[in-house]
């Protein structure tokens, strides 16, 4: 089924031209494969996170439904779809104008360079196309064996875990991972040789449990006795665990196929995680390069207006949120300017003469080098923490807003640099998601799961939290509790399989 086709003719010539500019500017990347397709195909791909083949699930259909009606991003066409793989795949919309295609290509080379060089992407699997396809095959097989409804409703529950990840796992390189798996394997082999029980590793315990798995009911009602599952065998030393997906995959009373599905979803979630942690940098970097390549090299004078039009659409500021494209590109440009002129370091910081500061130019010319270095080692949080300065904040007219209960609307709150920066960093911390940790897997000594919401000023949406806990209960099959803060009061909720109750 060929829904996409390779470049040819004018577009191929353009690609070669743009690629040469990218190389000359010093961008490095895995080979980029451009494919051309129509709007429907772009929608299909975008709904599936850019991948042609995913596991079957209605949520992809939902995203496709919304995308194909153009609801998702207002009235706009998708300009870019780039996949972090080797080779790097990028899709061009066949109905776009030549000037759009040029811009997209230049933008794509920026992303491709980022994917290859940014430290947070080091451990992402560059063969994800195949991995995703394999997950699809596996899950289809499970559906044939256990029934589509049963498998799909399990996926529904497991998807609730998708943001319960630990960003530190990204540092676990393939090598470390292999070593760990090796260790686990030997532990199991030793156990099979009948070594003594003392000091059994978790890996071994989970192996023993997985042998028992097949005896449990895999029914997801959650209200029946969980076979003779031995929660007591779980290592209770779990306080502070953030990789909750992994914890449940290894320790919950699941059938093999269920544990495997959680494993698939977890692998995919970790694959996308670096993109969620570097949205501002990644889009900023790509926008920086499309803008540079276009304005300095690739634009024909007849295309300037169209380019400006599209570019300004991408860069639009919004009072409701920070546009990552805009803030990212401006920050890279600001860094470049500061390192070209030497506007950094103690001498510059301590200078109090505003005029002198403004005209400061030490002719260092280190800007280009600096931004390449920055794109290598930072993620959004460290990027902003390090380079988001007061001058920049003022220039960009950034403010914080908050909800005013009296008027029932969101209103501008502050233009105070300190508050803005704190708010920004808070919004970005833990890839923008609430930070949830396991405190105990044997709460009350009754094998109840106790979660802790590490509160940083913003409450949870309790309706969603309740539904999420219901799904975790379906997997854990024992009561699930959470400690959090609601309206500045510490609260403790317990979900017992029927309802969420506050425990005083």
């Amino acid at each position, binding site marked *: 089924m060929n829904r996409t086709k390779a470049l040819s003719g004018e577009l191929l010539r353009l690609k070669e031209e743009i690629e040469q500019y990218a190389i000359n500017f010093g961008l490095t990347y895995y080979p980029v494969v451009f494919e051309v397709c129509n709007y429907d195909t772009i929608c*299909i791909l975008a709904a599936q*996170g850019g991948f042609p083949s995913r596991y079957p699930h209605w949520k992809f259909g939902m995203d496709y*439904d919304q995308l194909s009606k153009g609801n998702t991003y207002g009235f*706009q066409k998708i300009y870019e779809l780039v996949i972090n793989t080797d080779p790097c795949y990028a899709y061009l919309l066949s109905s776009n104008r030549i000037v759009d295609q040029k811009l997209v290509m230049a933008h794509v080379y920026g992303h491709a360079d980022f994917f290859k060089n940014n430290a947070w992407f080091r451990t992402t699997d560059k063969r994800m196309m195949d991995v995703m396809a394999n997950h699809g095959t596996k899950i289809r097989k499970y559906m044939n064996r256990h029934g589509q409804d049963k498998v799909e409703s399990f996926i529904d529950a497991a998807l609730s875990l998708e943001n319960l990840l630990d960003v530190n796992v990204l540092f676990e390189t393939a090598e470390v991972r292999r070593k760990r798996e090796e260790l686990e394997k030997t532990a199991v082999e030793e156990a099979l040789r009948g070594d003594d029980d003392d000091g059994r590793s978790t890996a071994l315990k989970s192996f023993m449990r997985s042998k028992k798995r097949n005896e449990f009911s895999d029914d997801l009602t959650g209200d029946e006795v969980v076979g003779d599952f031995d929660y007591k065998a779980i290592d209770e030393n779990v306080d502070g665990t953030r990789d909750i997906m992994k914890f449940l995959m290894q320790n919950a009373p699941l059938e093999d196929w269920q544990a495997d599905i959680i494993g698939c979803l977890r692998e995919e979630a970790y694959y996308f995680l670096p993109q969620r942690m570097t949205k501002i940098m990644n889009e900023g970097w790509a926008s920086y390069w499309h803008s540079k390549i276009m304005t300095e090299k690739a634009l024909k004078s007849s295309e300037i207006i169209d380019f400006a039009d599209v570019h300004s659409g991408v860069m639009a500021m919004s009072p409701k949120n*920070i546009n990552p494209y805009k803030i990212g590109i401006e920050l890279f440009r600001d860094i470049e300017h500061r390192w070209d002129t030497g506007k950094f370091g103690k001498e510059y910081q301590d200078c109090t003469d505003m005029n002198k500061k403004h005209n400061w130019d030490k002719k260092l010319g280190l800007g280009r080098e600096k931004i390449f270095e920055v794109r290598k080692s930072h993620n959004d949080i460290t990027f902003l923490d390090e380079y988001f300065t007061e001058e920049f904040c003022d220039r960009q*007219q950034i403010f914080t*807003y908050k909800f005013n209960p009296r008027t029932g609307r969101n209103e501008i709150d502050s233009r105070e640099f300190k508050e803005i920066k704190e708010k920004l960093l808070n919004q970005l911390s833990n890839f923008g998601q609430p930070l949830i940790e396991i405190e105990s897997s044997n709460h009350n000594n009754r094998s109840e799961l106790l979660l802790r919401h590490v509160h940083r000023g913003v409450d949870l949406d309790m309706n969603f939290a309740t539904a999420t806990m219901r799904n975790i209960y379906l997997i854990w099959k024992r009561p699930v509790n959470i400690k959090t803060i609601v309206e500045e009061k510490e609260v403790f909720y317990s979900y017992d399989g029927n309802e969420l109750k506050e425990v005083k």
Partner: protein
Amino acid sequence: MDHPVKRDHARFRKIVKGRIRENLKKYVSGGEMPIPKGKEVFKVPMPQIETPRFKFGGKQEGGTGQGDGQQGDPVDGQPGEGEPGQGEAGEGEGKKELEVELSIEELASILGEELELPNIEPKGKKSMESTTNKYTSIGTVGPNSLKHYKRSYREALKRQVATGNYDFNNPVVVPIKSDMRYRAANTTVTYENSAVVIYMMDVSGSMGDEQKEIVRTESFWINLWLKSQYKDIEVRYIIHDATAKEVDEDVFFRTRESGGTLISSAFKLCKEIIDADYNSSEWNIYPFHFSDGDNWSTDDTKLCLDILDNDILPNSNVFCYGQVESRYGSGQFYKDLDQKYGTDNDDVILSKIKNKEAILDSIKDFLGKGK
């Protein structure tokens, strides 16, 4: 061969319909109605279909934005547009509430399944013409976009051979104007069953906003069902207090009169409309009357029954009377109709609508007989 995502899509649509069906009662009694969008499509808001995850609560969260403005200025405008989407799975944040588009057929089938409504056996001749064009023939005139090249060149070749202008060694064919052939439309006429719904409503003082809301909701779903059964329906609206007049839909739901109630006035007007515009051998006719059951006098009620018997019932598929309870209405008219026709009559369907929760049952009363 379709892409697997189309299967995911079909699955999603199925889930959505299931959700709507589950919540239909809540939905209908909440007075919520799908928002018409375009000719045959409705938008239905679908809260709570996304996967639940731990996420931040909306209100106190606040955020950061860019642009002009003083402290205290509102930032709630249109959500930022012009952000190119980079396909990123699992990023459901910041999405607007999901809206799903459903066609009339889809919505009607949900209603039909939920209420187990039988399909209607249309009566009368097929009278509504509908024409479809298919480009199946060839003409000598037409626009360039319909030019039939093969046929045009064949004509040109015939002409050149016949006039001796064709050179076998240099086979060039040049069509002239008279050689040109164009695809032409063959019009086929099909006849459809046609239906008209005539809504009558008492707008005297005792009918309050809540009663009208009930009628509005009910008529929406009734229209939807009839539209799914007939190719197209006509709808006429009559309001009455002591006198009746025909109005458009908007006025129908907004008018409030003070004054007495003569139901016969509406029935008379209904009869006139049928006589003037709808030959009952060609039309499926559905008169609906909604009131709180008060009528001016027993004499008028007698008159109503006469008009029903002599003029309306013989010409209609079925006559439906819906009585919305109000604080002031006596509900006498229902009793009078009940006494004469009973609840098991094939030509007259009576339904009491206590409150919004009863709307769905009442729709089932009216449409459940498949008349």
